[in-house]
């Protein structure tokens, strides 16, 4: 039960600072007066749970764990060892508070989290404002046609132009031509794939189905493949994670 609850939550943390903030909030304490011993203990529980679940514990989490342990032990040290001439209490470390740096870090991070959520809201708001594609303009041969030897454009101009095109494609072009985008159907792509697999008489690399082309077409291809796998018409094989995927016809299909 315990483990399950953690496993759901672990994903939602953006790193050790995020996890710490969560623990501090849960403990209902002040960010400026962290009960280090308690929080450290809970933090370690999380880390152990992660490890038990065989999740990769990013090194940052471990670094933070050692920072916490260092602070904890510093705070437990008898005062005369470190701050021999000062009166201190746990609640009043003054400038020498070993937590100071961590608190400052948490504070800064917290501010940026807040800004990130504001950005998210603005993003949503912006997504409700629409525009149109630029108008086609019939310029009377304004663009000079002569064979100029000097062309003032750099590779970076070219790259930016390319990115620009694809960003526009991904983000901003209204799909007014919904009908046209149906140039490829899942059914026709299913047929293409089965034909290819049967003709080839050997496993076809997954990537071969993609090559160049429109994203729409690639997505359609992928859906067709999924459908074929679901129907049991083909089998996909992959040796290990991220290795190439090969598509084969099923054993009972005619295949030499």
């Amino acid at each position, binding site marked *: 039960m315990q483990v399950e609850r953690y496993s759901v939550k672990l994903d939602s943390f953006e790193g050790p600072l995020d996890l710490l903030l969560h623990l501090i909030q849960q403990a209902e304490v002040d960010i400026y007066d962290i009960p280090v011993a308690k929080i450290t203990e809970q933090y370690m529980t999380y880390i152990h749970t992660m490890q038990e679940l065989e999740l990769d514990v990013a090194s940052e989490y471990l670094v933070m764990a050692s920072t916490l342990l260092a602070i904890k032990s510093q705070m437990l040290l008898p005062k005369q060892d470190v701050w021999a001439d000062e009166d201190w209490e746990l609640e009043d470390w003054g400038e020498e508070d070993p937590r100071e740096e961590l608190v400052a870090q948490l504070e800064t991070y917290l501010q940026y989290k807040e800004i990130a959520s504001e950005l998210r809201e603005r993003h949503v708001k912006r997504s409700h404002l*629409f*525009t*149109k*594609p*630029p*108008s*086609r*303009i019939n*310029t*009377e*041969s*304004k*663009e*000079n*046609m*002569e*064979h*100029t030897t*000097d*062309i*003032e*454009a*750099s*590779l970076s*101009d*070219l*790259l930016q*132009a*390319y*990115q*620009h*095109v*694809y960003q*526009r*494609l*991904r983000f901003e*072009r*209204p799909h*007014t*031509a919904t009908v046209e985008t149906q140039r490829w159907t899942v059914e026709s792509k299913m047929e293409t794939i089965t034909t290819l697999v049967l003709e080839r008489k050997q496993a076809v690399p997954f990537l071969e189905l993609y090559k*160049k082309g*429109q*994203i729409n077409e*690639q*997505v359609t291809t*992928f*859906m067709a493949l*999924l459908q074929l796998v679901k129907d049991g018409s083909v089998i996909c094989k992959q040796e290990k994670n991220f290795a190439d995927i090969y598509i084969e016809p099923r054993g009972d299909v005619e295949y030499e």
Partner: protein
Amino acid sequence: MNEDIDLILETLLYVSGDEGLEVRRAAEAVGIDKSRVITELERIASQYEEEGRALSVQQFGESFKMVTRAEFSEYVERYASPPQRGTLSQAALETLAIVAYEQPVTRLDVEEIRGVKVDRAMTTLVGKGLVEESGRAKGVGRAILYKTTPRFLDVFNLSSLDDLPTINDNEQTEQMDLFMSSYREQHE
């Protein structure tokens, strides 16, 4: 909502741009009769006229378009293609970038990616010796294929096409995102 119908139709006129607002689809989107859409659009058109607005609304058969006024066309042209020495226009650069990465490629392919006509830009690029024809595509129509020229490599200081930087490392994931969202759409 009744009183906003004109504003909504103006909004739709704007977003449909060059394609024009189809009366039938507009009627469906707004939830009113086709005839009502036409009346409203005609009213908007004459209102634009009377108020001397920058744009005008014109009817073309079953669709209406927001268009610019002829008297300002010289500014539009000047904005669209500013006088240049040697530099490539944005349209030409974008077209060139697509040809460079996708070659050999037909004009239609490029137009699909850019979302606008590229005939003029392509002519410019051929004229400047950056792009050349490279045979015909298979299939119906046998469209002309385009590729970059050796001069292209020269101008952009590339020793070969392999030198073109790879871009969009996260293309793969993004395509997956796209796939997932469209898959969800279809299956939910």
